[in-house]
């Protein structure tokens, strides 16, 4: 009489409750004939029970405060103040010259989202001239800005999230032309997407977050271009839009 082959994997599957029901009887018959194997599995079962006894109480421990609300990078008020001062100094000719070259580069890596926030603050309240080229000339807008930045730009469409494209404009950046696209929801809440050309071809896909007064900025690098989405909206809402922008640009 041929017996079904019971493998080590079958025994673990039996123990973990994932063995197909049709094979349960086979394994049970196998164990009935091999008490030492049955004892071994019982020891494994006890191990699992001991793990649960030891570590299940962690589930009910109150989480430490910092774990309750996952946080991104929040700029603390004092640091924020210092950062604004630092930015103003860097902007001034004197401050610029006083800094060592490497420090300039490091500061540059963190200052461009700040420029995006400032551009947001300057242009988003505009009633009559929020943009240079309106959404009705979207094709022209994209061609023009792509040509000026020297990179092929795409404009995300955020209608599904409730934000319509208002249009865009060209701005001076720290290293050349920069594009700003503006969006608006039904209540007049505006978001701006700031797009600049990176110094290097980098791909740091992680989002970073910065806050300038009431303006939140999510920014990230994607190969040749750097993106910063700014708005005076709740952080979760801004992240939702930033995620949609990222996905449209990386289908």
């Amino acid at each position, binding site marked *: 009489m041929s017996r079904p082959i019971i493998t080590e994997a079958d025994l*673990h599957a039996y123990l*973990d409750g994932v063995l197909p029901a049709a094979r349960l009887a086979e394994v049970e018959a196998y164990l009935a004939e091999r008490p030492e194997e049955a004892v071994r599995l019982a*020891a*494994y079962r*006890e191990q699992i029970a001991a793990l649960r006894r030891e570590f299940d109480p962690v589930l009910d421990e109150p989480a430490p405060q910092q*774990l309750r609300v996952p946080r*991104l990078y929040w700029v603390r008020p004092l640091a924020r103040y210092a950062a604004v001062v630092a930015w103003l100094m860097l902007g001034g000719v004197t401050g610029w010259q006083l800094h060592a070259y490497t420090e300039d580069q490091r500061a540059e890596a963190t200052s461009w989202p700040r420029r995006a926030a400032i551009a947001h603050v300057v242009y988003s309240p505009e009633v009559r001239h929020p943009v240079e080229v309106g959404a009705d000339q979207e094709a022209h807008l994209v061609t023009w800005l792509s040509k000026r930045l020297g990179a092929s730009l795409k404009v995300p469409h955020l209608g599904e999230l409730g934000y319509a494209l208002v249009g865009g404009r060209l701005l001076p950046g720290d290293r050349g032309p920069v594009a700003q696209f503006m969006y608006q929801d039904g209540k007049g809440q505006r978001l701006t997407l700031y797009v600049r050309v990176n110094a290097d071809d980098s791909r740091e896909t992680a989002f970073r977050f910065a806050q300038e007064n009431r303006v939140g900025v999510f920014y990230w690098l994607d190969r040749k271009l750097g993106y910063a989405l700014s708005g005076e909206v709740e952080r979760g809402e801004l992240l939702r839009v930033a995620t949609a922008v990222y996905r449209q640009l990386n289908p």
Partner: protein
Amino acid sequence: MSDLDNLVEQHIPRLRRYARALTGDRAAADDLVQDTLERALSRFHLWRRGSDLRAWLFTIMHNIFVNQARSRMRYPHEPLDEPAAAGLQYREPDWSELRDIGAALSRLPAEQRTVVLLVGLEQFTYEEAARVLEVPIGTVMSRLSRGRERMRALLGGDFRAAALKVVK
């Protein structure tokens, strides 16, 4: 706060349980969870909505754990990659140390400990554990088998003896 925070937040207790068992240390475990949450949020746009968020979070935690293992390790004698000749280096355990399951766990190589915990404690299927650890399912099975057997040896072989040692 946002949907996103709520979505992630409900997984925190299980991430903490796994991290505690994995590191054997409360502070190291909570640091690991914190790092996991921060990385997850900064990469949330890379998560495909509708796919298994718990598995994704555990995968992130596993990667951080592996990357930090050498510097943060609470169990300094464990090799990260089990050497082929591991059997040659077997040392008689100090039985007086083995007061409980946590001590036995700490003596498993990390690669076996992760599988034993994902399957036994966190109830991942073998396929899910293979995805989290980014190894073939056959590797999961062999690590599970070796890990459970090593635990059995560490706990004295007899489940009744093991149970007695668990009671403090």
